[in-house]
């Protein structure tokens, strides 16, 4: 491997350490499929390496987020899993440290999230987990604020119905 190539690899790894986990989480929520999310991240970093753009991208997280978004939607088109339900045993969510452990609640939430459309999952991810406003999400996704707000509203409504049997206090199924 040439010196330039080694340097480029090291830069890509630094880029991965900095942005990889958050890009993966974004891809995971869009695709609802851990293996596919890994493929998407791998593809983006391979493209970065091939294009030699790693130096330019070091401080350009928005660019990488657009790239992972493009890749995920391309994958959804290719695999035609856009509106279908995939049974995935791997976890989509992890509990944050301060929360009480409620395995049933997590499983119910994951089931619900998998039944949302990719666009709804994306809004939930960006608004709830990444803390973006609807305006910021609209700018990132090219949709109008009204569309983004509606997607979020429908997503919550759908989750509410799907989680109807899980009590928010102890996460047990109602009899």
């Amino acid at each position, binding site marked *: 491997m040439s010196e330039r190539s080694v340097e480029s690899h090291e830069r890509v*790894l630094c880029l991965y350490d900095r942005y990889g986990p958050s890009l993966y989480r974004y891809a995971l929520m869009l695709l609802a499929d851990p293996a596919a999310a890994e493929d998407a991240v791998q593809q983006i*970093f391979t493209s970065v390496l091939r294009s030699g753009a790693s130096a330019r991208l070091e401080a350009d997280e928005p660019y990488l987020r*657009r790239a992972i978004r*493009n890749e995920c939607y391309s994958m959804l088109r290719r695999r035609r899993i856009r509106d279908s339900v995939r049974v995935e045993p791997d976890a989509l969510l*992890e509990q944050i440290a301060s929360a009480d452990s409620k395995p049933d609640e997590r499983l119910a939430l994951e089931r619900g999230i998998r039944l949302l459309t990719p666009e709804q999952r994306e809004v939930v991810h960006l608004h709830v987990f990444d803390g973006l406003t609807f305006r910021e999400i609209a700018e990132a996704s090219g949709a109008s604020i009204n569309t983004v707000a509606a997607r979020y509203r429908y997503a919550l409504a759908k989750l509410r119905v799907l989680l109807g049997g899980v009590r928010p206090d102890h996460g047990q199924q109602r009899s």
Partner: protein
Amino acid sequence: MDNREVEEMLRRYRPAAPRPELRTVVMKTGDSGVAARQPQQERGNLMKHHTITGGGGVQLHLVETGDPGGRPILFIHGFSQCWLAWSRQLNSDLADRYRLVAMDMRGHGLSEKPRDGYANSRFWADDVDAVIQALKLDRPVLCGWSYGPLVILDYLRHYGEEAVGGMSFVGGVTKLGSDEANSVLTPEFLSLVPGFFAADVEESARSLESLLRMCLAQEPSAEDLYLMLGYNLSVPPYVRQALFSRSFDNDDLLPMLRKPVLIVHGAQDAIVKPAIVDQHRAGLAHAQVEMMPNVGHAPFWDAAAAFNGHLRAFCERLELAPVS
């Protein structure tokens, strides 16, 4: 349960972290991915054939293969050729990721060969538009060889570049029928031109065989030459004459193009002088240029793996670009 409770429940979680192994996978992809993804030739991918209606009602033949959900690449062959010229792309692993479409230009291959309808730039533009519309190609990369870029520019003149993702000019010319246009063509090639129009079959065949040998830096196999000669001879002399009778200059469009452009040229091109790349670079400051060593007028044939690698890298860069 109300929306607030659902939100609260969501906030007790976050998306799962990646496996630690992903970092290693990314690193290994960087090491081996480039080599592992080198195109394999002649895989025998399944081809779908279409017939659509182009400009002025001419029936056009198209071939499609690859990933129907992938970025489309529309291949446009050169003078007197047909879709088979792109065999080493259509049967490569480009098909794993991209939707590959090759058209037979009017008068060529299995497309209709009317007596007229070649002089009007609008018809050529309509042909490309008809392919994009009929196959619903989403922001395709238009990849044209030799005469192909003339057709791509015909399309851009009449339809703009809104519907395309990018362009690739391969051993391409952008103007025709003037001293200036002829100055980028080699004298050896120009000396063959009268033979292309000969009604005499033997003379025509001799000229076309010379043309094919001139296209390639390496001696073609007998099998390849036989096939190429076959589809070259299937183009009537009046079509070849009509193509060469066009006198136009599409260079005025070059500085106006904003979409990404990839220029590929063989350093040993014996038909279109490599010096043309400097002219194109002057008009297309943002173009990426790949001058391929030891390669002739048909880089996608002479060095298919390397050519496919350039095309793939170009398409990957398009995916990295913001959604337009």
